[in-house]
């Protein structure tokens, strides 16, 4: 994108006559993107989703199709036009830009997906600055000092919220696509090299987490030959917790939260892994003792029973 185009969207300081001419040219030029078209004096009154889609299909069909392609519009249309924009055009854009609108549906402020962002530097700076600066500016060209949810996930107003998000954190087949998407966003503020290194390091960190999970899954798989399903209930529960902790690492990397990368992520997975190993050791020891000891002793020690106390 040219420097002139970037100037168009930054009125915080003077940019002279040349800039003004460029701005006029850009505003009247065709194919200027969705934003200018969306802002033609919108009709007043309340509209439901069906009416909104019908009208905006004529105005901006690519926007609707992007929405349908992403997680919000796919499946049962989990987040429709009115869910984010409200039913009227009044303040609809600001409403959809706000973090709170997203947080309402995405598990509330304490859910890992929102909390990991809220405690990141981006989240905290935005929390301080939003009351003064509002949410009316477009989601592009560093028009916000730090990005909110929508700035990254709906960068430049694009409506496919699945862009830049991993489909499955257990494999990295979509790595390149995700990398290309989010590099564009981050480079509004950060140098390409910094963004590249952050991304590579994040990938490596996530891979370390995956290797912990793989180690645990292999151990449990081998154990299922020796022990019954009932014996392995706690082990499986621990494995499930481990997956949550791996997700935390992903969120920590994506939202740049040290706390989610670390305390809710890596060392938490270490704990899961050693507990799985410890539980299997214990099962093995009980099995050996039971096999060698007399039935009487096995009955007396009743080791498994002590766990329930």
């Amino acid at each position, binding site marked *: 994108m040219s420097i002139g185009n970037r100037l168009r969207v930054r009125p915080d300081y003077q940019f002279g006559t040349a800039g003004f001419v460029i701005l006029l040219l850009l505003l009247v030029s065709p194919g200027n993107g969705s934003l200018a078209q969306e802002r033609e004096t919108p009709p007043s009154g309340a509209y439901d989703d069906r009416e909104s889609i019908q009208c905006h299909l004529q105005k901006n069909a690519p926007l609707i199709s992007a929405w349908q392609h992403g997680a919000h519009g796919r499946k049962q249309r989990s987040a429709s036009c009115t869910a984010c924009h409200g039913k009227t055009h009044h303040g609809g854009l600001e409403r959809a830009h706000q973090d709170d609108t997203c947080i309402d549906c995405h598990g509330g402020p304490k859910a890992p997906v929102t909390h990991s962002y809220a405690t990141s530097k981006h989240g905290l700076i935005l929390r301080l600055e939003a009351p003064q600066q509002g949410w009316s500016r477009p989601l592009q060209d560093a028009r916000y*000092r730090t990005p909110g949810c929508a700035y990254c996930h709906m960068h430049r107003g694009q409506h496919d919220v699945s862009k830049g998000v991993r489909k499955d954190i257990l494999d990295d087949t979509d790595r390149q696509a995700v990398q290309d998407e989010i590099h564009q966003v981050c*480079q509004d503020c950060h140098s390409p090299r910094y963004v590249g290194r952050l991304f590579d*390091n994040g990938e490596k960190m996530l891979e370390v987490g995956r290797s912990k999970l793989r180690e645990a899954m*292999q151990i449990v798989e081998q154990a299922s030959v020796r022990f019954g399903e009932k014996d392995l209930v706690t082990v499986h529960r621990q494995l499930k917790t481990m997956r949550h902790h791996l997700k935390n690492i992903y969120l920590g990397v994506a939202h740049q939260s040290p706390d989610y990368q670390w305390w809710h992520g*890596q060392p938490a997975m270490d704990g899961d892994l*050693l507990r799985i*190993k*410890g539980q299997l050791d214990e099962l*093995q020891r009980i099995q050996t003792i039971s096999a060698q000891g007399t039935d009487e002793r096995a009955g007396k020690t009743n080791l498994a029973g002590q766990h329930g106390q």
Partner: protein
Amino acid sequence: MKYRRIRYVWLPVGVALLAGIGYVNWSKSGAGLYSRLWQPEALFAYWNPADFYDPVQSLTGSFAGRECVTCHEGVTPGIVNDWRKSRHSQAREPVYCTACHGNDHRNLHLPTPQICGGCHATQYGQFVDEKRYGFPSHGLAMERALDARHFVDKPKAEVSACLQCHSVASKCDSCHTRHLFNAAEARRPEACITCHSGPPHPDDESYFASRHGQIYLEEGKDWDWSKPLHKGNYKVPTCAYCHMEDGKHQVVDKSIWKFGIRQINPLTSSNEVKRNRWVKLCSDCHEADWSRRQLAKLDTERKQAWQKLYAAESVLCRLRADDQLFPPASQRPAYPTDWLDEIWPRERIGFFEGQASAFYNVSPIERDYFEMWYFDNLSTYKAAAHGDAALQRRAHAAMDRDLQSIKREARILRTLGEAERELGIDARAGSYWRIGDYTDHNREHN
């Protein structure tokens, strides 16, 4: 006789001393005590620029400040937006990019505290002075992270998570975020939360739940944050008001309880000096006697917490003495930092033995104790110190549960051990303690 003493006593002592100094210097030649044992990730350049920054080579030429701005308006507009709003750009003689980064594009640097200290000498002086109070502190955060056993042992991409917060020692923008570097932003509690949150230090949770924090949340957005952190300027204290009073750039000259990490004697003369500093600070709003009583309550809380911790620690120490920890240290991977570990493997119980690194590759009961000490104990401390009574109760109840659970686990380990002894079984831990995707990777990629 005299010469013999020189030959047999002083000469060997001298040689040993020189060899010791030489060894320490050799091993510290990179970054940290064990830097010869590991290679940094490329990203470390940004967390610890003094040791690891490598300038960008993609563009040649020397540029004046205005030229940087013109070009970066297109390349990274966010940076320029910030800088334009900053005091740096609004000064009579603007502080351009070149003042902090240099002007040769192939030899740029990231500003370290030392570079910022070139202009902000008072703050830099205070920041450096902090180190004499030891750790935990901001000033020593990076050194101690790089020297930690688990940092050296684990894959560097994994422990890069540590450096994000520990970089508070190696750059100023942890609190004064770039490129606005706003003092007003750093005065607000939110500036601290990215690092001061989570299980070992729920400073955010405990402060915001306190009366101070509740009032801040209600009214803080309307206060004038350009005012210095001085008596009468703020209705309630924030993190920085108490820990960096009057804007002093060091946070530990009042640090009595040392984060709750180890037990301290609160009544030493040096701690009495620190206590008087607290009382003086609290007296900005409260009566001195009342403040003293509140601080004494914290002493009591710490004593209660340590009684619980020592009870748990003694359970573990007795298990270790009786050889009942399972698996024992000899059957799990050793730290590469400690060659003694290979020939004399031992479990590390308690702060002074290195419990801080003993959170992985340890037996479950040791991990339980780690969590009791590092999570629940530190939570009770933070809650008591910041005035969050509910969290204090919850975390103490959690410590009680931890202790009971450790005792129960110990009974199981002993019962199993005794049964095995009677039956003559030599129980070995599963091979999975030493083999596996992560465990192998960890051994090879530190």
